[in-house]
């Protein structure tokens, strides 16, 4: 449908713009534009400051959140746990009561098998919480341990006791071995006591640190911080272990009759080896 009126208007379009603009309008307009320019400049500066402030605040928040997340990751990760061993008398008062070890230790298969279902996952989370609680006591214990190690150098004194009955000695040895607080099946080194004598080691009651070997074989991705912390923990526990009875290798001379006691002490700092003749008359 032809729109004749529109066609006519479009044909003579310029004729319709007849009305002139007010004379003083131009100067008024440019004054307004100048004011707008000034106002906009001030606004831009203000916006720039606000933007920078917001960016800085956001950055701080992100960093704070990152640190918090890092700590969370470390606390929930599989932290090495020092075995709850018999403690020196001096540390008994100061230490926090820790749960029994056999309640928290796991076999390697159980511990590092990937989650198979949600129940197992929730169970893991619960266990992780227990571990976290234990970690607090561990940190306090660690201080005691380190202090104890420094106060008591590795070499141990062995007090021999009379008693040469083979059966009795064997039972005693087994009893000692059973009492030895090396409960982690994955401990790298174990104490070997093969003595027909009833050995009383002052440092047997000293804290024995064992490390969780399997934790170092975990295939889970770890953050750098967590990795470093684990490394430090590993180093500390290794040192502690070296300075305690793990470094003591007690062997008896294989003979029909108890004749001597071999004492081998190995450490990074020194190596000591001595064979003590089991001559009761010498006492």
């Amino acid at each position, binding site marked *: *449908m032809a*729109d*004749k*009126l*529109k066609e*006519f*208007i*479009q044909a*003579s*379009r310029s*004729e*319709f*713009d*007849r*009305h*002139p*603009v*007010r004379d003083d*309008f*131009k100067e*008024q*307009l*440019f004054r*307004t*534009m100048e004011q*707008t*320019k000034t106002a*906009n400049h001030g606004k831009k500066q203000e916006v720039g400051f606000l933007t920078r402030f917001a960016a800085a605040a956001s950055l701080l928040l992100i960093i704070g959140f990152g640190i918090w997340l890092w700590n969370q990751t470390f606390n929930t990760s599989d932290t090495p746990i020092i075995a709850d061993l018999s403690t020196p008398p001096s540390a008994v008062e100061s230490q926090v009561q820790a749960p029994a070890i056999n309640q928290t230790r796991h076999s390697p298969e159980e511990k590092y098998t990937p989650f198979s279902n949600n129940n197992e996952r929730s169970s893991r989370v619960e266990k992780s919480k227990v571990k976290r609680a234990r970690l607090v006591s561990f940190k306090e214990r660690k201080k005691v341990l380190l202090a104890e190690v420094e106060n008591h150098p590795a070499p141990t004194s062995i007090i021999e006791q009379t008693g040469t009955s083979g059966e009795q000695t064997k039972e005693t040895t087994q009893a000692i071995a059973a009492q030895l607080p090396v409960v982690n099946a994955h401990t790298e080194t174990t104490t070997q006591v093969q003595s027909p004598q009833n050995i009383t080691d002052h440092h047997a009651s000293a804290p024995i640190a064992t490390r969780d070997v399997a934790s170092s074989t975990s295939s889970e991705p770890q953050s750098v911080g967590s990795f470093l912390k684990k490394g430090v923990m590993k180093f500390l526990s290794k040192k502690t272990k070296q300075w305690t009875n793990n470094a003591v290798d007690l062997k008896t001379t294989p003979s029909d009759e108890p004749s001597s006691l071999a004492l081998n002490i190995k450490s990074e700092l020194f190596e000591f080896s001595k064979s003590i003749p089991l001559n009761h008359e010498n006492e």
Partner: protein
Amino acid sequence: MQEWVKQLKAGDHTAYRKLYDDYARPMYNLCLRMTGNEADAHDVLQDGFVRIYEKIGQLKQVEMLPAWVKKVFVTTSLQFMKSRKSLRFEEIDQQPGMFNLQEESSLLEELENEQLIAYIQDSIPKLADRYRIVFTLHAMENMSHEEIAKELNIVAGTSRSQYLRAKQKLLEIIKKNKDHGRQTERIYTGITQ
């Protein structure tokens, strides 16, 4: 034009004076048709130029400057009208308006071009806001009904029906003015005779 737009973007006052000289009059007439009175038209014209000054950086294609300037003034005018008056486009207006094509043809043939332009110019401000806006945008600014519908947040059918009603009203006013002019002419002729 490229250099000119570059100067405009740089905030050069000489370039803005040139822009004013080229566009002030047609844009003022556009604003006048949209608002219906001179005072409001001047306010909208000022707002439009300030907006161009602020938003010139958003112009991507240099050759689109005339269309962009016109769009800025149309948008500013519509915002002004929406803020000052309630623009209501009733749903019933979606029905096509009745229009006598014969009457339109005879009127256009009957009047001289100059006369007709004057009559149209005088009649547009007498239209209701919604009719005047749609008529101005479609007949004067050559915008499609789809574009108008988009600007006014209405459907294209409403724009079409509003335009037909506007045209009908406009022709009625022109006819009335023409008849009134004849009567006045007769009276004048009679007195003088």
